[in-house]
């Protein structure tokens, strides 16, 4: 059985003055965030507000200004930050001969997946999939998975390296109501049982209200951040989501 670590609450990830410009256009300006382990930070905002760009900048996928620090709050020692990432979608066509094992092994191991299965790796992957009740999917084709199944597989993969920070880009479509509920429950479980901080781009304000510890309202810069109540009842929130009703919080 896998050892489950309680969040210690002592690690802190600081994003300082992060900015991204593409060509002439300023996509993100002076973003400052403090993220603690054992918490779920939800990033909300309209389409094109720079949410996915922020995640890509944190991952180092696109060039940015500012810096990201990972500190132990007790002794202030700076450590190397390990990031797990769950993308919004995969670039996999229907019929692609790629099993869940192939996909995870491609990211986790150098042992060529076109040769025979590596039994040790297979066991490890299966064990990790068990955490999200996805172990029965290991030999299935990735292109045949349902949205919810794929999400659980990607989550398993994201935490295989025991990251300090988990970045999630929630899919907009392909998941039904039950799937979304299960997804948020899983995230909540992760938050409580693993020593990591979670940052989630969310499109569902109801679920954010229910599960997030901290909310960041983004529109090229941080308009407002704080607890669910603080952000959801702010003027900035009303301006951004003027036409969409902000209820249930």
């Amino acid at each position, binding site marked *: 059985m896998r050892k489950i670590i309680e969040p210690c609450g002592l690690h802190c990830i600081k994003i300082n003055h992060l900015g991204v410009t593409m060509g002439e256009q300023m996509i993100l300006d002076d973003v400052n965030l403090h993220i603690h382990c054992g918490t779920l930070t939800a990033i909300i905002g309209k389409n094109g507000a720079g949410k996915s760009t922020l995640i*890509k900048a944190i*991952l*180092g*996928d696109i060039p940015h200004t500012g810096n990201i620090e990972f500190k132990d709050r007790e002794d202030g020692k700076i450590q190397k930050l390990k*990031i*797990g*990432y769950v*993308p919004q*979608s*995969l*670039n*996999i*066509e229907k*019929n*692609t*001969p*790629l*099993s869940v*094992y*192939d*996909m995870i*092994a*491609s*990211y986790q*191991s*150098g*042992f*060529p*997946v*076109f*040769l*025979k*299965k590596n039994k040790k790796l297979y066991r490890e992957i299966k064990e990790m999939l068990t955490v999200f009740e996805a172990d029965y999917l290991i*030999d299935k*084709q990735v292109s045949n998975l349902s949205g919810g199944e794929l999400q659980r597989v990607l989550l398993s993969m994201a935490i295989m390296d025991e990251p300090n920070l988990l970045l999630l880009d929630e899919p907009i479509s392909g998941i039904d109501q039950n799937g979304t509920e299960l997804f948020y429950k899983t995230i909540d479980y992760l938050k409580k049982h693993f020593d990591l901080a979670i940052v989630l781009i969310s499109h569902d304000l109801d679920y954010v209200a229910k599960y997030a510890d901290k909310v960041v309202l983004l529109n090229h810069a941080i308009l407002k951040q704080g607890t669910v109540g603080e952000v959801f009842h702010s003027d900035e929130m009303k301006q951004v989501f003027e036409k969409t009703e902000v209820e249930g919080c």
Partner: protein
Amino acid sequence: MLAFFTDWWQYGFMRNAFWAVLIITPLFGILGTMIVNRKMAFFSDALGHSALTGIAIGVVLGVTDTNLSMIIFAIIFALLLNKISSKSTASTDTIISVFSSCSVAIGLAILSKGGNFSKYSSLLVGDILSITKKEIVYLIIIFAITLIFWTIAFNKLNAISINRTLAKSRHIPVSLLENLFAVLIAVIVMLSIKWVGILIINALLILPAASSRNLAVNMREYHFFAILFSVFSGVLGLIISYFTNVATGPMIIIIASLIYFLTFAYQKITHGN
């Protein structure tokens, strides 16, 4: 009766062609898997066409070995296409098409100057029967290099093709590997284009992998069927072309296409989709 089937083996050129087919086809089968996964069919096609330009440049510069100018041009062309596709927001296939047409036109213009194009027309369909022992050795070397590269880099290339950002988050050197892969395809396509032919080389890269996708459910089966179909079409195509006196390249592609249609039908029947 037996003599009828073993007859062709007596000829040195047929034996050489046989060994060449046994090296080229599995190589193409293997590379094709990733080319199809990464939706690079158009890219490899453009690369094949750039052979004309490479030779034309060699002729203009007065290079004695146009193979060299062809390979160098193809490598530059491949890297350029990679760079433009990753930077530009315009659709990749449009960009590749523009560059490909432009380069083919320049190649044709130069090579046809003075009405001399017939000298190069064998490049279009290829002639595997003219391969020499020395050239087979080159193919063996590139085959070995590809196998090593594939063993080391396949997982990472696969990871990149699934999701670039996710691959980057795992510290996979995305651009480096994409460029290495493009260069490898460029070199292999150029080294085999004389034998396979510009017009059909892309089919030999794409068809076995495409057929394999109709049957395979994981990466092991994908590679296995792609190599199997590729070698089978190659060997059978060579033998049939000997008996029917048809160019070998097209015969190989006809068989590979038949396999594609058969696997396609099989998939439709068994999966009903």
